[in-house]
């Protein structure tokens, strides 16, 4: 279990000025027992047109492997500034990653989508494991991933 509090005010474009218009959101990602090494996960948000808005978390420390998180890598061109200060360790098979951060209210019910790209060494890359619209109603509803992620919840 990982419980992290990240304040994104300085690091990403996802927060609006002033914490009054933001709320703490907990993102819980539970992985399958897929029988491999720890997974790299990139959590990021796109807008209604599918354009990259910003990153929420990068699980995995070695930037040389980020190219395997291919959608995130394509969107950011591997720009490490996007994840400066919001990087943690990779997540082992069967383990849960829990992050708590302050997200701007304006992100909800406005067409934004939260994506997770996943990659595991010597196993297939899995971009867009999760693509879940950020809505107030969707909070607390578990979403299954495609290959490595058993369930993802935000609330």
């Amino acid at each position, binding site marked *: 279990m990982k419980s992290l509090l990240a304040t994104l005010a300085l690091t990403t474009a996802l927060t609006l000025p002033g914490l009054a218009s933001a709320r703490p959101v907990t993102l819980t990602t539970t992985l399958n027992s897929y*029988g*491999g*090494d720890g997974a790299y996960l990139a959590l990021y948000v796109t807008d209604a047109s599918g354009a990259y808005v910003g990153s929420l978390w990068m699980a995995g*420390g*070695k*930037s*040389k492997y980020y*190219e395997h998180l*291919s959608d995130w*890598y*394509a969107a950011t*061109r*591997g720009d490490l500034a996007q994840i400066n200060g919001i990087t943690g360790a990779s997540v082992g098979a069967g383990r849960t990653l829990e992050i708590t951060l302050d997200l701007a209210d304006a992100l909800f019910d406005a067409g934004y989508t939260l994506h997770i790209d996943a990659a595991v060494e*010597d*196993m*297939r*890359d*899995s971009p*867009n494991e999760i693509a879940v619209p950020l809505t107030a109603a969707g909070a607390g509803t578990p979403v299954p991933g*495609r*290959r490595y992620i058993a369930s993802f919840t935000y609330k």
Partner: protein
Amino acid sequence: MIRALHRWPGLVALILVTVLALSGAALSVFPAAERLAAPQPVAGQSVADLAARVAASHPGLEEIRRSPSGTITAWWFDGGKPGSAVIDPATGVTVGSADPNPVERWLTNLHRSLFLGDAGRLVMAAEAAAMLVLALSGAALVARRTGGWRRWFARLRGPLAGRLHVELARVAVLGLALSAATALWMTASTFDLLPDGAVRPADPAAVSGQMAFPLDRMAALRDVPVDGLRKLGFPYAGDAQDVFTLSTDAGTGLIDQGTGDLVSWSALTPWQQVSETIYMLHTGQGAAVLGLILGLIALSVPVMGVTGALIWVAGRRGRPRLRDNAPAGRADTVILVGSEGGSTWGFAATLARALKDAGQAVHIGPMSAFDPARHPRADRILILAATYGEGDAPASAKGFLDRLAQMTAAPAASLAVLGFGDRSFPAFCAYAAQIEAAARAKGWTPLLPMDTVDRQSPQDFARWGRALGQALGLTLDLNHQPDRPAADSLTLLSRRDYGEAVQAPTAILRFALPKASFWARLTGRGFARFQAGDLLGILPQGSAVPRFYSLASGSRDGFVEIVVKKHPGGLCSGQLLALDPGDRVQAFVRRNPGFHAGRGRAPLILIGAGTGIGPLAGIIRANARRRPVHLVFGLRDPDSDFLYRDDLTAWTAQGRLARLSTAVSRAARPRYVQDALRAEAAQVAEAIRGGAKVMVCGGRDMAQGVASALEDILAPMGLTPAMLKAGGRYVEDVY
């Protein structure tokens, strides 16, 4: 220095490097197994053809990969479920599971990080660095031991552990250095220390927006053979803006799914190419045979670790432990020891102790490590040197004279030389005398004139100590009692008596071979491994000083045999000749590599008189390969002291002895071995021309007679005994 560089990383890293090597060896099997299990490739197949076949039988296809071993794997996402499988490229259908092998995963993680993440990776990288240091310093040591890089595969001597260590090392060192160096490169790459990251091709400005162009007609895929494929990523189903991503051994490109044309390309950088080659060399992925060879080589690491540790332990045992040995740089008195069997070290330790008690800072070391620059504070250098053979350097003094000769000026510290030897040998303290002469010639300031110690005499040593004390203004009382060498108890099996009638009572004594411990066998110590020509030290009752006899048997014969003549009033020979079967004596083995027959096929001319036949008989008995042997044997009376008479007849019948010449001294016309030699000058000269080795064993007078006879025989060929000696083809064991 090189030895220290080899020893310490070796001992410290022993366990972890063993883990590294064994896991690496186990991993090396997987690429080969995968190669064997991979479905047959289709000759000349293009990626377009392969992709079309796979896509036809796998709806929702997302990616096709080709591993370096040739295995084709497909990944798809169909009906909300991901799938993956190994594919037969000929048909495109599933033939097996693509799930990673959990054993291989486990081994890989052990091998590279001990399951400890980045910290473990750094530890293992340090082990790889240690292995590289070991390989390089070890190579230098092998070259030094064999006598140069060109003699890399020269034959080895010595105890089993040492030989095994070097035998393995000289085959394995290249592979181990390769594995270690590539491992370090891969670690540097993992930690982003190398600019070998992937370069993604630029996104195309615009794509056609079309979909469903037939795969088998895509130009960008038709040009690429499957052999060069790494990976083909498919566009998302229904996303007309997405593209194919094709990775090959040349680079990565993007392909428009509506036209099948390449719209963007980025070639592999040179750094990437180097890193990929190194990855292949290290893992064997794509070079399965090399991987297996490297794996096999890695198996030598634990063996070399254990034998290396044994060598280290054996080396430490050879010298007395000296407490508070002052560091080389701080010593005012430096004692350099030239010892063959180790007894001179004992004297040196006694001297060091006495000097330390007198308030001196003493450093003691082998003469082979002679380097005055290491002792800036030394006021005096004391050299205690034994002599090996006819004035050669003993083992721990190898290279001393060369180093002294290379110095431009004599060391500032003054010098005293003490020689150790046995006055009954002509070359008594000859090596010490050479040192003294060389030092004088260099202008090295003497502290004392050279002195000698005869047969480990405590009195001689104490006398020299008093002289040294006087020169230093100290009172030095050197009281050295030589240690009795560790001896085994030998039981007499049988004795054969000769020579009573000619007033030379002589016996061939055969003792049971004592049981050698596993440790002794492994390190080749004691009675575990000896051969005819080595020496048997007997400790007679009532004396701490051993007497040496040439061995007439080898350990393979299963018994210990010597030939002993009774000396009037002789303590040891008297006790030996009084033995009855079942009686015991205390004895030990001392190697005498200078008097071994050697392995080659060249003829042997063995010359001996009286008891001197002992080692020669042992050499003939061991001559199972029927090397041509000519024995020239001198005796008094064939009816009384024809030692080994029946054996020689049998050995002749077996082909172990080609020719026997005898010289009888108590006959109407007395003849000695040198006469027999001259009588057969033609045959002897012929044999020497054919590369024969001459081995002489017996009394000193006989040896001199043989030398002058040989001189005459060799002269017409333009050879001298000295030239043969220099080439190791003329050896003597004289008493």
